[in-house]
């Protein structure tokens, strides 16, 4: 079929908003990278252009003046401990809910899933005092536990749907061969739902790496700051010190791991997030 002139024009016309939005998304991110290489004087002279020389002074400043290194370590620990704990807690429960008949299994599933819609902000006040009593306030492992539990509903929701696709015959065969249910869970179910486990783990890792508000409430001393708190702190200081370059370096350090994960797992992340949202 021959395309009409109108259709050709239509296609070009549609491209304009798409390209504009691409620029709107990419430009601030590129500019954040560029700004991290500029001196403060240069940021004032031409905030939105390319740097004259690419220097790493801002990164050095962030590392020495603001202890970004400690915050990176804290964020890494919280992210790794949080994701590991989430899996340890979520995999057995997801399996039991999905595959073992017991009274209340549907209720339990609904309880977990519906808690995704509840605003947790109300719970943060009592949680603050509970963590204080447990000596887990201002403690990155305490924060990791809170994070892990906060992502439990989402993780259980995604994992049950993955486990439901595993054929029951595999478990039955293993059970006939004398494998215990613990063996089935560990040697059959876990490897076969690996794809789902990887997806939720990446999503949880990004979530924990990025999280800001709970860290703001539950961490206090600067040596325990996660990266989100550290850059927020630099940002507030920058109002007075004008250390914009250092701030951009902090933003870049916080964003690069997410970009790397996205570059590798783009499809999984997009799929995991849309599925998580469709729960409705």
């Amino acid at each position, binding site marked *: 079929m021959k395309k009409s002139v109108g259709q050709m024009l239509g296609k070009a016309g*549609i491209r304009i908003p798409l390209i504009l939005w691409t620029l709107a998304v990419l430009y*601030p991110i590129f500019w954040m990278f560029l700004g991290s290489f500029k001196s403060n004087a240069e940021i004032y002279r031409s905030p939105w252009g390319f740097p004259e020389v690419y220097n790493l002074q801002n990164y050095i400043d962030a590392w020495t003046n603001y202890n970004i290194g400690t915050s990176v370590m804290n964020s890494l620990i919280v992210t790794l401990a949080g994701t590991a704990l989430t899996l340890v807690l979520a995999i057995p429960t997801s399996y039991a809910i999905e595959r073992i008949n017991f009274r209340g299994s549907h209720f339990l599933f609904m309880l977990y899933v519906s808690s995704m819609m509840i605003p947790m902000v*109300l719970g943060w*006040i009592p949680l603050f005092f509970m963590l204080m009593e447990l000596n887990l306030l201002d403690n990155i492992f305490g924060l990791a536990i809170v994070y892990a*539990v906060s992502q*439990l509903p989402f993780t259980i929701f995604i994992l049950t749907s993955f486990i439901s696709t595993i054929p029951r015959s595999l478990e039955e065969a293993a059970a006939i061969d004398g494998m215990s249910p613990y063996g089935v869970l560990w040697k059959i179910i876990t490897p076969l739902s690996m794809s789902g486990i990887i997806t939720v783990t990446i999503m949880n890792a990004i979530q924990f790496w990025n999280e800001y508000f709970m860290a703001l409430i539950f961490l206090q001393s600067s040596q325990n700051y996660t990266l989100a708190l550290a850059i927020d702190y630099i940002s507030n200081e920058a109002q007075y010190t004008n250390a914009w370059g250092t701030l951009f370096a902090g933003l870049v350090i916080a964003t690069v791991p997410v970009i790397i994960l996205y570059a590798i797992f783009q499809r999984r992340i997009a799929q995991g997030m849309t599925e998580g949202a469709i729960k409705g």
Partner: protein
Amino acid sequence: MVQSKKQKYMFLTFCLVPTFVLFAIFTLYPLLSGLYYSFFDWSGASDNREFIGLDNYIRLMNDAIIPNTIMHDYFLVVTKVIGIMILALFFAVALTQLKLREAPLYRIVFFFPNIMSVVVIGILWTFIYNPNLGLVNSALDFLGFEHLARPWLGDEKWALPSLVFPSVWAGIGLFMLMLMGAISNIPKSYYEAVEIDGATKWQQFWRVTVPLIWPQIKISILYIVITTLNGSFVIVQVMTGGGPNNSTHVMGSYLYQQAFVQFNFGYGAAIGVMILVLSLITVIILQFLLRRDKVEY
């Protein structure tokens, strides 16, 4: 399966109990005791907690800032739903119907802000709105509209609307992908059938696309509403902290201010209960409003 009852219950206990105990301690119990604390006057130290009945709620009714925070939340809800849905729907239709060669590139780029940290987004946009260095004022200068330049986040009238753009910017990708998934599931024959009837592209959009992806549109709207009511305070906290002069406080950021800055924990809990109640009511009303019979051709 060859398994005794006892073994089965042992295994169930192993699977369910540790997880549920932690969930109960760190999610269910705090929510319930938040409700309980809302009846106390409490500045943090455990020995001076005083039961005051409904006084926190009476104070809530008389606090002149509260109605504003509610208004601000719903302002963000409405503007975000409109902004995100229009753009996401437009992009989703464009990328599925027009077989552009570079379509995957747009998908990848548009989705990325969805996984960026709210802190990074907030700080980036704070700088974009910076009165002297920011992109917005520079662009206005460049285009000859200097008189429109203003300290966006420092202006009581403009600060709140200025928060809408970062939220839309960060939110579109996810909903675009959800709608694209729905649109690509519509059989081609439906479009051919109405095309034979002489329907224009615009009519096809309203008569075929919208009714058939209605479930996903509804889910998207609900999701935006829930995440905004339950989480809009994060971007507010990062970008304005509720200022200038309380003009951007939403319910959540006001709760933070009352509880964790001014140590009125009981009053903060009452605000939390209000957030919970309002978001549940809103979701129920929306479910009802968005009900629409399933379309089948």
